[in-house]
C-alpha cells in the first residue's frame, strides 16, 4: 500500500507541476505566454536528456543533436506545400513535394531521433567518462555541421520559417506529459533498473549479469527518440528555427537545468527545467521593469545573464546534488519508533 502510494507521488509531482504551468499559461497574456511555453518545452528537452544521462551516469553533450534532428524533420515536413516549393527549392523531391500533419511530424521527429541515437550509440556506448563526453560532443558538432551545409535535407544555414506554430498551451503541456510518462515508465521498468544499477557500480552490475553497453544503448535510443519529439515541440512553438538554436548554447543550458534540478531523478529534471527557465523569464521581464508585490524592480540591461549565471554557480556550489538532492518526490515519512 505504502509502496504504491510512493509510486503515485513520484509520478504525480512532476505531472501536477507541469499541468499547473500549462493552466497558468492559458491565463497569461499572449506576450507572456511564450515564457510558459518555453518552460514546458524545456521540461520535455531536459527530461529526454535525463533518460540517458540521469539513469546511466554517463555524461553526454550530444543529446541536443537528437533535438536538432527532430526539430528540423518536424519543421521541414510541416511547412505548407504551396510555400515550400518557393522557399525550400533545394530539397530532395520526396521531401519537397510532401507535407504531413502536426502529430505525424512529432512522431517522425521521435522516430528519426531514436534511429539516429541508436546508430550513434552502437559504437559510442562502449565509452566512459570524459571520452564519452567528448565523443558525444563530436556527434553534436557533426550533426550541426551537416544540418548547416546539406541543403537537400533542410534549409542549410538559412532560417527555416513558415512552420505552423501548433505548440500552444495544450500541445506543450501534453507533450511534456508524454515525455515525463515515458521517462517514468522506463526508469521503473526492468531495463531502467538495470541501467541504474550500472550507474551506481558498473563492475558489480556487470558481475550480476547486467549487460552494461546494451542497457546504455537502450536508454540512449529512448533518450534520442524523446529528444526528437521534444525538438518537434520546439520547432512548432518557435515557428522558425536556425541550426544555431539547437547547438552549443541549448546544450549547456539544458545540462545546467538538469544538474541544478538534480541529475539522478525525474523530479529533479522537471524542477530544474522549470526553475531555471522561470528565473530566466523573470529576469528578462525585470530588465524592462517589473512589479513584484508592490515593489518595482528595474534591472540594468545585461545583468540578466550575470544574475542567472551567478545563481546557477551558487546552487551548484552549495547544493552539488541539485535542488531536489537527486531524489524523487516523496511524502514526509513518520519516523518509526
Amino acid at each position, binding site marked *: 500500500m505504502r509502496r504504491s502510494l510512493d509510486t503515485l507521488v513520484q509520478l504525480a509531482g512532476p505531472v501536477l507541476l507541469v499541468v499547473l504551468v500549462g493552466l497558468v499559461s492559458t491565463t497569461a497574456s499572449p506576450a507572456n505566454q511564450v515564457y510558459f511555453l518555453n518552460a514546458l518545452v524545456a521540461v520535455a528537452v531536459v527530461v529526454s536528456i535525463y533518460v540517458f544521462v540521469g539513469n546511466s551516469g554517463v555524461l553526454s553533450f550530444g543529446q541536443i543533436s537528437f533535438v536538432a534532428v527532430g526539430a528540423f524533420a518536424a519543421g521541414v515536413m510541416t511547412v505548407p506545400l504551396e510555400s515550400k516549393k518557393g522557399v525550400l527549392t533545394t530539397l530532395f523531391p520526396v521531401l519537397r513535394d510532401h507535407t504531413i500533419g502536426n502529430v505525424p511530424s512529432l512522431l517522425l521527429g521521435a522516430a528519426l531521433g531514436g534511429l539516429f541515437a541508436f546508430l550513434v550509440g552502437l559504437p559510442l556506448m562502449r565509452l566512459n567518462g*570524459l*571520452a564519452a563526453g567528448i565523443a558525444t*560532443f563530436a556527434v553534436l558538432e557533426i550533426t550541426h555541421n551537416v544540418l548547416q551545409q546539406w541543403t537537400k535535407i533542410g534549409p542549410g544555414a538559412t532560417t527555416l520559417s513558415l512552420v505552423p506554430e501548433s505548440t500552444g498551451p495544450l500541445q506543450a503541456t501534453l507533450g511534456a506529459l508524454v515525455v515525463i510518462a515515458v521517462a517514468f515508465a522506463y526508469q521503473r521498468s526492468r531495463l531502467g533498473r538495470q541501467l541504474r544499477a550500472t550507474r551506481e557500480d*558498473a563492475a558489480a552490475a556487470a558481475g550480476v549479469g547486467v549487460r552494461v553497453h546494451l542497457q546504455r544503448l537502450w536508454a540512449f535510443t529512448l533518450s534520442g527518440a524523446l529528444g526528437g519529439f521534444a525538438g518537434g515541440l520546439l520547432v512548432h512553438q518557435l515557428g522558425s528555427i536556425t541550426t544555431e538554436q539547437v547547438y552549443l548554447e541549448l546544450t549547456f543550458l539544458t545540462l545546467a537545468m538538469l544538474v541544478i534540478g538534480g541529475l539522478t531523478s525525474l523530479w529533479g529534471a522537471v524542477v530544474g527545467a522549470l526553475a531555471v527557465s522561470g528565473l530566466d523569464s523573470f529576469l528578462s521581464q525585470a530588465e524592462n521593469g517589473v512589479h513584484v508585490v508592490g515593489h518595482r524592480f528595474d534591472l540594468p540591461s545585461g545583468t540578466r545573464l550575470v544574475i542567472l*549565471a*551567478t545563481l546557477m554557480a551558487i546552487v551548484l556550489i552549495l547544493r552539488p546534488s541539485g535542488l531536489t538532492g537527486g531524489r524523487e518526490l516523496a511524502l514526509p515519512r513518520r519516523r518509526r519508533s
Partner: protein
Amino acid sequence: MILAVLNFQTFSDAVGLGALYALMAVGIGLVFGVLRLVNFAYGQLIMAGAYTLAFTSTWPLLWSIVACFAVVVALSLLMDTVVFRPLRGQSPAVMLVTTFAIAFLLQAVALIVDLRDGTLGEVAPSLSYLNEPVTIFGAEVRKITLVSIAVAAVALLLLALLLTRTTIGLHTRAAAADFRTARLLGVRANRVIAFSVFLSGLLAAAVAVLMTVQLPLVSPDFALRDTIVVLVGVVVGGIDRLWSATLGGFAIGFVSGLINGLLPTDKTVYLPSAVFALVILVLLLRPAGLFVWGRRAAVERV
C-alpha cells in the same frame, strides 16, 4: 597534390597554432591533474587577459603585459578559492557544469564592461607589429609564429624543470598520481592546488598575449572556440598525463592549422564533420588517449 601546396609558411603557421594550443592544454591539464576538474572557464581567463591588454593599450607595452598577467593570475586564484575549493570531491559532471556557469558569468560581465562605450569589441593593437614577416631560409614567416614557438618551448621547458627538480613540483606530481596517498604522506593539498592553479593562470596570460597579436579584436567569446577545440585535443591525447594532454593539444592545433592553410574555403564545408569523425574513431580505438601507451592504456577506466 597536397604536397604541392604544402609550403613552409603554412607549415610554420600550423606549428605556431599547435604551440599556442599546447600551452592551453598544459594549463587545463595541470588543474585536471590535481583537482580532476575540467575547467571549461579556462578560455574566459584568456578572454579577461585579452580585455586587459585592450584596455591598457595606451600604457607602455611592458606594463600592459604585466597588468594582463596580474589580472589573469588573480582571477585564476580567485576562481580556485571561490569555486573549485567548495567543489572538491564532487562528481565530474557537477564540476564541469559549474565551470560552464562560471564561463557564462565571466562572459556576461565582459559583455557589460565591453558595451559601456556602446560598441561590441575592443582592440588590443599593442603587439600587432609581430604580424610582420621575416625571411628564414628564403621563406616568409610571421614573427608571431616564431615568438609563439619560442614562448611555448621555454614555458614547457621551465615547467618540466619546475615539476621534476623542485619539491613543490614533486608534490604536485605526486598529488596528480594519487591525491589521497600524497596527502597521507604529508603533501599539503591546498598548496599544490594553488600552485597548479597559479601556473595555469600564468599560461593563460601568456596565451592571451600571443593570441591578441593575431586576433586583435577582443569580444566576450574570445578564445571560447579555441578552448573547446583544445579540450577535445586534450581528451583525445590523454588527459590523465600532462605530457600526453600537451601533445594532444599540440596535435589538434597543428592539424587545424595545416587544414586551414591547405584547403580552399569552399572545399572545407564538411571538414568539421570529418575532423570530429576522426575524433570519435580515435576515442573508440584508444579511449585512454592517443598518446598513452603501456599498462594504463590497456585498463578500461570504469
